[in-house]
């Protein structure tokens, strides 16, 4: 039985790759070929769909917008979560447990519940259709997550580290930035990975809060599908391209994923 153990993950990965392959396969076909024939690989290989995306600004700006607010959100979430996670992991203070659970409840709030009020709220403060609005709204679920993961990593660092540093005459700021942050660098990496991931894949809020200036690529796709007929090839090409940023990010954190999951209790 041990000999055939590799079969299970292999079959699973095959199952994961099939729909992705099909999407990429479609993206290299012409629209007529997609509609008229069923084929396992493109008969008339074309890169027309990709050329269209890279030359039409409504398409490629979608990617720029998505990446912009995702990066904003990752930076804001981690920067705000770092001191908070430190406080939760090191100190007891009035209402700490309630505050922690309250933070987590926001990770549990269905975005559908918040879509409409968000729209009204961000419109009233004149932030509608800006990158920062989407980045701030994604903080709703990313900050609680970031605090949760970072707190796990920080609690794994013995408190003696802090105490030794103070005995050695380090000020708090110097200790925090020179010693503590490098110690939990892996944890920060994992946290950024998760913030990036959840901000990148979310669509409901991003779509509700934008119109033209900050429209994410995912929304461009749904709108194009409804306005200019059903161009499956183009849609498939755009979809295939959205996989790339995620794949790059995974490649960078590959060594930390398993460890990060365990320590950071994600």
């Amino acid at each position, binding site marked *: 039985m041990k000999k055939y153990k590799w079969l299970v993950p292999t079959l699973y990965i095959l199952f994961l790759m099939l*729909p992705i392959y099909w999407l990429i396969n479609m993206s290299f076909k012409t629209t007529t070929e997609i509609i008229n024939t069923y084929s396992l690989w493109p008969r008339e290989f074309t890169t027309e769909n990709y050329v269209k995306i890279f030359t039409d600004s409504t398409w490629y700006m979608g990617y720029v917008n998505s990446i912009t607010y995702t990066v904003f959100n990752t930076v804001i979430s981690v920067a705000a979560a770092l001191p908070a996670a430190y406080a939760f992991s090191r100190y*007891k203070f009035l209402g700490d447990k309630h505050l922690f659970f309250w933070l987590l409840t926001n990770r549990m*709030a269905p975005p559908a519940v918040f879509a409409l009020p968000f729209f009204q709220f961000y419109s009233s403060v004149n932030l509608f259709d800006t990158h920062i609005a989407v980045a701030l709204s994604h903080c709703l679920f990313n*900050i609680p997550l970031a*605090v949760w993961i970072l707190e796990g990593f920080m609690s794994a660092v013995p408190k003696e580290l802090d105490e030794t540093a103070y005995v050695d005459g380090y000020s708090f700021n110097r200790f925090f930035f020179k010693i503590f942050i490098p110690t939990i660098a892996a944890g920060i990496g994992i946290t950024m990975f998760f913030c990036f991931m959840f901000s990148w894949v979310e669509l409901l809020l991003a779509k509700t809060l934008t119109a033209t200036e900050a429209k994410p690529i*995912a929304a461009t*796709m749904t709108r194009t599908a409804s306005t200019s007929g059903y161009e499956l090839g183009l849609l498939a090409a755009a*979809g295939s391209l*959205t996989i790339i940023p*995620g794949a790059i990010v995974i490649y960078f954190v590959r060594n930390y994923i398993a460890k990060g999951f365990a320590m950071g209790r994600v």
Partner: protein
Amino acid sequence: MNKTINQKAWFFVVPVFVLVAFNAAIPLMTVVNYSFQETFGNNVFAWEGTRWFKQILLSERFHDALGRQIAFTFIILLIQIPLGIGIALTMPKKGWGVPVCLILMSMPLLIPWNVVGAMWNIFALPDIGFLGYSLNAIGFDFNFTQQPGDAWFTTILMDVWHWTSLVVLLSYAGLNSIQPAYYQAAEIDGASRWATFRYIELPKMKKVLTLAILLRFMDSFMIYTEPFVLTGGGPGNATAFLSIDLVKMALGQFDLGPAAAMSLIYFFIVLLVCWVFYSLMMKNEVKS
């Protein structure tokens, strides 16, 4: 770890508190506001008391959506958790296979949700999709845009495809934290493979598994984008889960009062289940 009491720690929490409160409290209050009032546009409101809540709680539409939601969440948990554990157990523990498995398995997690829906739509179409075409070719009458059963099958398969990896990664991390000494002890005692799993691996994975169930419960209970793109809630209302039904009511029909009341009931259900889980998790943590 024994923590020091320090009220000044609040200063560290202030940025997070402000950012989340800004995002959570204000919209939530808007929802609460709507849920008790009738609006005629132009910011004219009339007090309605608990009418919307009663209406929602007694409406068949809500019962149906909730029933579908519970069935969906239950089915995907039942498939994903055992499958995820199984795959994690058979994954390589060292060598080149580890990064390959981790990278490939994480892929579905990082694809935008509407792309997941679109991808499965293309994949399952009965005439040009690989899945739909193959199923029809071997004799099944498969068409997820017409038949509710097929729509359910496709939605569940899509969710299994999308999220099982999360359970795998979590279980794998849990398994990796087990010291080799435990396995050696089990071998000396002549424990069977099942006994090793039942008495060593499963208890060690308890923490991450609770977390996996919690995360999968929350996210599947909130599922919106993927089934919306895949089936649009159809055929009919067959796959209209809670979020889909809610958005239809709020943005489609602009019934703000009932939609707000439904949001609050919805949020309350999620909160209740998560609170139970969270308490269990914390209890376990204190014990260990």
